[in-house]
């Protein structure tokens, strides 16, 4: 098999780079994806928080993925599913890049390509890397795996949950498990601050009064068959546990959200050098790796907080690869550059907000701290917000707080047991659980298409529940 441009991975990075290269005139593209669907990690991120930059609207992960899948389909860009690239042998001047691919239906074969874009995303750090001693019962899962079980397969991994690590996946899963009726005991974070976005702390933990234990860690695992409990202890400045503070927390599930590692085994197979700090390939300004004609973008390059940024970066990689293919000239390898991770606002525990009338806007990842003053005439003066979203959010938050909710509805006869859904608008905060119990009582028959209204006027809120994916 031959392609001008081979793209490894069909997540947002792979798809956006394909679209950009296509727009530059490269038609002979092949996306190689090992899952049974395009979309990457976005398919399991059923929550809101995508697309504010790229599409100027707040989308869920599956909806964001669908937008790109549609662009791929419209352009008839070819892709392989259930196909995993096992090895890349870089071009040597005479032969093109060679990709070894294992597929479900045709076994192992080779693909030749003039240029390659690496878009393999990242994986979660396992328990071993955290070195938590104890037994090895069932019930200890990387948060992303639990997310897959719940959001894709429709299974609940457990009922009494502790989460270790306050990365975004952990925070999102705390809320997800809570919304599915689990008792989420706490989120434990060894550092004195959280690694997640502030808005996620507010809307995933604070909204549901889930405690965040900063400067704490897990020092013991109990249970031989299934997890029975964990021992949580505070740590000192050197992150050493203070045994006196140890507390036993009964639970049947421990979710680990301790960071993501770019998935670069394939890059290593091609002899691409990896940056110690980002865990991704060293690239030049054009996102080209040290091996000419091989580019990298998205989470494989460095872990991104935002899919929108992934798409932008990936488009640049797609264009650069297209340029090389068109001109036939291989770029001069400019000075090696370390990709920059976007600066992150660190979480200030709620108690530290200086005044009772301050709140954190959850409108976008900027997470502005907004101050609301009530004037004598009862009007509100709102300051601290960087954009109008903050003003509107703050006004609503003090008068009639509302939330957009995402969850799952049971599907009969579909490819999976569930389909992801969302409210079409904010619902009153105190109606969240009423709304969820109605969702829980609903079942629909396949096929379901994204956008289908599955429940009208949920819990009397005049808001509808619509599907956010196809099933």
């Amino acid at each position, binding site marked *: 098999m031959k392609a001008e441009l081979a793209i490894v991975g069909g997540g947002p990075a792979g798809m956006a780079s394909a679209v950009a290269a296509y727009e530059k005139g490269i038609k002979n593209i092949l996306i190689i994806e090992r899952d049974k669907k395009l979309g990457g990690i976005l398919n399991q991120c059923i929550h809101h928080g995508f697309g504010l930059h790229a599409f100027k609207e707040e989308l869920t992960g599956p909806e964001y993925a669908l937008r790109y899948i549609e662009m791929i389909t419209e352009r008839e860009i070819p892709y392989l599913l259930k196909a995993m690239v096992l090895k890349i042998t870089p071009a040597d001047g005479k032969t093109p890049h060679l990709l070894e691919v294992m597929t479900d239906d045709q076994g192992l074969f080779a693909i030749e390509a003039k240029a390659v874009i690496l878009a393999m995303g990242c994986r979660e750090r*396992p328990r071993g890397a955290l*070195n938590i001693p104890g037994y*090895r019962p069932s019930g200890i899962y990387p948060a992303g*795996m639990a997310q897959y079980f719940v959001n*894709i397969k429709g299974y*609940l991994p457990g009922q009494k949950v502790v989460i270790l690590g306050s990365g975004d996946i952990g925070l999102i899963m705390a809320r997800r498990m809570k919304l599915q009726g689990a008792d989420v005991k706490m989120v434990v974070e060894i550092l004195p601050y959280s690694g997640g976005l502030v808005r996620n702390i507010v809307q995933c933990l604070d909204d549901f009064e889930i405690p965040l234990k900063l400067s704490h860690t897990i020092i013991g695992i109990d249970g031989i068959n299934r997890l029975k409990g964990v021992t949580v202890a505070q740590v000192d400045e050197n992150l050493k546990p203070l045994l006196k503070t140890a507390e036993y927390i009964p639970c049947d599930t421990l979710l680990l959200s301790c960071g993501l590692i770019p998935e670069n085994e394939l890059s290593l197979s091609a002899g691409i050098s990896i940056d110690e700090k980002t865990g991704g390939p060293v690239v030049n300004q054009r996102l080209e790796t040290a091996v000419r004609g091989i580019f990298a973008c998205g989470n494989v390059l460095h872990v991104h907080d935002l899919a929108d940024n992934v798409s932008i970066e990936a488009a640049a990689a797609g264009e650069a690869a297209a340029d090389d293919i068109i001109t036939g000239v291989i770029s001069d390898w400019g000075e090696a550059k370390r990709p920059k991770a976007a600066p992150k606002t660190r979480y200030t525990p709620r108690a530290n907000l200086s005044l009772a009338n301050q709140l954190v806007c959850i409108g976008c990842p900027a997470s502005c701290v907004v101050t609301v003053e009530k004037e004598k005439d009862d009007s509100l003066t709102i300051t601290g917000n960087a954009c109008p979203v903050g003003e509107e959010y703050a006004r609503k938050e003090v008068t009639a707080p509302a939330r957009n909710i995402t969850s799952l509805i049971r599907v009969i006869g579909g490819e999976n047991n*569930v389909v992801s859904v969302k409210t079409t608008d904010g619902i009153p905060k105190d109606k969240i659980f009423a709304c969820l119990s109605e969702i829980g009582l609903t079942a629909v028959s396949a096929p379901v298409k994204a956008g289908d209204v599955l429940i009208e006027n949920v819990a009397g809120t005049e808001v509808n529940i619509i599907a956010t994916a196809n099933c």
Partner: protein
Amino acid sequence: MYDVIIIGGGVIGLSIARELASKQLKIAVLEKNSDIGEGASKANSGIVHAGFDASFGTLKARLNLRGSTLMPKLAKELDFEYLNNGAMVLCFSENEKPKLEELLARGLKNGVTGLEILSQAEVNKKEPSINENVKYALYAPSGAIVCPFNLAIAMAENARANGVEFFREKKVIIIKKNNTCYFILADDGTSFEAKVIVNCAGIFADEIHRLVSSIPLTLAPRKGEYLLFDKTVGNTVKHTLFQLPTEYGKGVLITPTVHGNLLIGPTALDIEDKAGVDTTGDGLETVLKKAAESIKEIPRREIITSFAGLRANSGQGDFIIAEVSDSPGFIDVAGIDSPGLTSAPAIGEYVKALIADILPALDNPHFVSKREGIKPGNNEVICRCETITKAEILAAIQRTNELFKNPGQISLDSIKRRVRPGMGRCQAGFCTPRVAELIAGELGINETDITKSGRGSEILMGLIS
């Protein structure tokens, strides 16, 4: 009525089962877990010891050497991973050299060939990663490594192919002797009868022994903890590197595994709980500290998992393999601590000879000594870290199913030990749902019934509501 019932499906019971299968005997193996090979046989160093440790004249010394000699041929016959990488015992000071010489002398007396003491320069040449303060090393070219999981599984599958019956989830709780045979009751209420019983219950062999005999026997668990590293650092060392042994055993070693990972451990701590296979903060720290004496740098960032195993310590300094004097036809194979894995093939032969005296039998004319492992597949990749395909996983499910005579479930760990999905750097973070789906599909059960390692370790709580 069985001729022989083997209690315990660890590497020892399995080796005996396979050896006995070459005779015309009706044999069964009773295992309390949902699969074979889940005791000490799955949590050890996987080393084929050359044979210089055990005292001259002991059964241990004899069976170790014999086992290590049989292993390469057996690996070919049964198709499990074996690598003759050679071993070294490191010595860090001039003062300790006599101890090294003592080991050499003992090894030679035990019949180990090829042993020699290497100078610092010679050690460095063979093993550049070694610490600067290593002064000498005892080099044992016959030292080797095996896959402990597949050694056990291969012996079981071959025994099965030759007619041995395997029963899972049969915890033996009562044994009664009448005039002609033994009556065995399992915890699920089923019963078995046998002319001869072989007690291979590992750390629990003392409890089985006490069901029939009044001669004292106690086994105490001695815990060993390990750390396993990613394949990216699997070539840190080439040989298996020991330190000088202490009264507690062979000390902390560093070794590559047959699959290309790096393994360090074990500790040796006497504990009370026979189910105490938890790792501890102290234990893992000790492993890291001790291992750091042997080589220049321990790649701490590449740790992927930790585990612990329990040695069955009889306090008698030797394996206990004999017909129990107050219980004719009842054979103890107890106190099989290290090097039990190495000795397993030899213990099989030895027990076969013991039984030949008690229960003479003709050779089995249909005995097939060869078994083939599962070959790499050519379809969808299910485990991305170890590149395990759907074909391999389906084959493992089918073989596990065929091994046992009684119905039962197949756990994720059973598949993991057979074809390695989940053994890699992400430690099953990716493949768990996918393997669960395949097992459920093959067995016609719900995914919510899938367990990590047998009953009680279900991974899911049900469909969401």
